[in-house]
């Protein structure tokens, strides 16, 4: 692995919440890498610090110690405005609760990152529609979020994460609110549409049924990465109703 391949590099990252007696250390010297062209899963029990870690990686929270580099840039050292611009240009988000704007149509929701970047409205919405069509939502472009199923909403969120062609996509439990079949569909779309040689995808998940999509899995517990596995992503195969997902795995 070369530095050029690294999209995210976390070194000894510490994050505390609260003050004085109520201070809680959530991240305890985390070392974590994510490479371009890979789908990296961040897994672990509830409360182990997964969401805090991706919030720090996204520059939405500041760490108390350690370094977080995205594409060789220490995001925490950037002035506030530059950090926002960096995030706007380089990051896409997929959330467990979708966080779609209820008043906007599917296409308008997907276009929000482009609108925030100053792309003219018509152009932004056209680009968003194109991606939604690729994700199989061609017939729901003008539907409001309340008229969409959970899987459809998550696909809109995925389109919103992809529309501005970011270099890193952060997904927080993207399948947690979906049934297994829909979750599989969403993960399949994520794996086939989001991952490219110039982009990294980090997925926080509990859902072991989708682990076979991962190129690498970082196991987290009690605020630390306790194990990292890299695997060649399997072609998804189902034989007599049984998934065959992992064909090669290396534990670090």
């Amino acid at each position: 692995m070369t530095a050029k391949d690294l999209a995210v590099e976390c070194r000894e990252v510490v994050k505390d919440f609260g003050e004085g007696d109520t201070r809680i250390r959530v991240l305890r010297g985390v070392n974590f890498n994510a490479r371009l062209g890979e789908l990296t899963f961040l897994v672990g029990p509830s409360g182990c610090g997964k969401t805090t870690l991706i919030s720090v990686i996204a520059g939405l929270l500041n760490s108390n110690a350690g370094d977080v580099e995205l594409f060789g840039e220490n995001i925490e050292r950037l002035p506030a405005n530059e950090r926002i611009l960096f995030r706007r240009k380089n990051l896409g988000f997929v959330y467990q609760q979708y966080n779609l704007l209820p008043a906007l149509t599917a296409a308008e929701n997907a276009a929000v990152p482009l609108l925030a970047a100053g792309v003219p409205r018509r152009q932004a919405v056209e680009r968003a529609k194109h991606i939604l069509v690729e994700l199989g939502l061609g017939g729901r472009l003008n539907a409001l979020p309340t008229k969409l199923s959970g899987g459809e909403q998550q696909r809109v969120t995925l389109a919103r994460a992809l529309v501005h062609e970011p270099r890193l996509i952060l997904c927080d439990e993207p399948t947690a609110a979906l049934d297994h079949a829909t979750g599989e569909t969403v993960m399949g779309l994520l794996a086939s549409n989001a991952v490219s040689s110039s982009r990294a995808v980090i997925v926080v998940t509990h859902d072991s049924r989708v682990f076979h999509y991962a190129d690498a899995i970082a196991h987290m517990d009690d605020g630390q990465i306790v194990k990292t596995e890299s695997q060649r992503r399997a072609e998804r195969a189902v034989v007599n109703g049984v998934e065959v997902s992992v064909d090669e795995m290396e534990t670090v």
Partner: protein
Amino acid sequence: MLMNFVALKMLTGDRAKYLGLIFAIAFATFLLENQTSIFSGILKRTGSQITDITDAQVWVMDPKTEYFEQTKALKDTDLTRVRGVDGVEWAVNLYKGSPVARTMEGRFAVSFCIGIDDATLTGAPRKMVLGSWERLREPDSVVVDKAGYVLLFPGEPLELGRTLELNDHRATIVGISDASAPFVSWPVMHARYSEAVNFVGRERTQLSYVLVHPRPGIKPGDLCARIEQQTGLRARTTNQFCWDCIVYYLKNTGIPVNFGITIAIALIVGAVVAGQTFYLFTVENLKQFGALKAVGVTNWRLIGMILLQALTVGLVGFSIGTGMGATFFEIFSHQLATRGIILMWQSVALTGGCILFVVILASILSLRRVLVLEPAVVFRG
């Protein structure tokens, strides 16, 4: 600019909340404009008999006179003394009394009786509904205002030639005027000075006011000062005397307190309801703002979005409320009892200022929550 589209969609997306905000502001606007205009209209009535007389620019009266209805008769020689002041082009007498007017059918009402100069008819009502003020030259004639006529002859058509008794003196109606409504809803009668004093009953002195017109080039205010200096009487311009009446009623009646309370309640209720609704609207959308922050929308852009939302609801609500107010006054300004009470532009401007203050305050309170919002909130389930 592009995010303005998102801001407006967020605002109007939830119809119930949007309409709630609009109507809170619209009703606050209506209440404020309504109460301030009625308040001003009622106070204007205290000087309406002064402003109705457009011939003269200066009023001369007893030094202790504070408002129109409070008169202490001057001596007849005071008229001559005023005429002698340098700068006076002409001066005429004016009488004001309050006889009881009684119809042949027995209906009666206390009335204002304005006695105007016999020779020139200065001070006669210029806006006539029926007949002519020049017919006041006929013996035992009066001009009565339309509202007074309707009060004395309810349900009957406007008609000249009817007779009245003014304190047992017979008088014939020779004209019906459109005099401005007085503070109390009494009929307003105009008659010649010599007859008006007979209607009311002669006293030792009769002269209520001297109406004065300055020579060309002499300012009314300057002439007032000269008259006061040379005669010891009180002299006020029409505008000053009108304001004297308003100030007197403000100081000596419960009107400002009563209206003040209503206006304050309208302001507080409007501010609280509109402010609270807008604040809750923003707070309920915090996660959406967090999502926008996460994708790289700056705090300045969010401030712009929230201010745009606030100004939009403020402008739409204010416009609807002003429309309601205009409709209200359009309907009621044609009623005799409420004639002359109109939606004043000053009320509209004042209310607009108040509404702007309320929505800006509500947005500032909301903005605080949005600005301190951690965008990481979007990752919380």
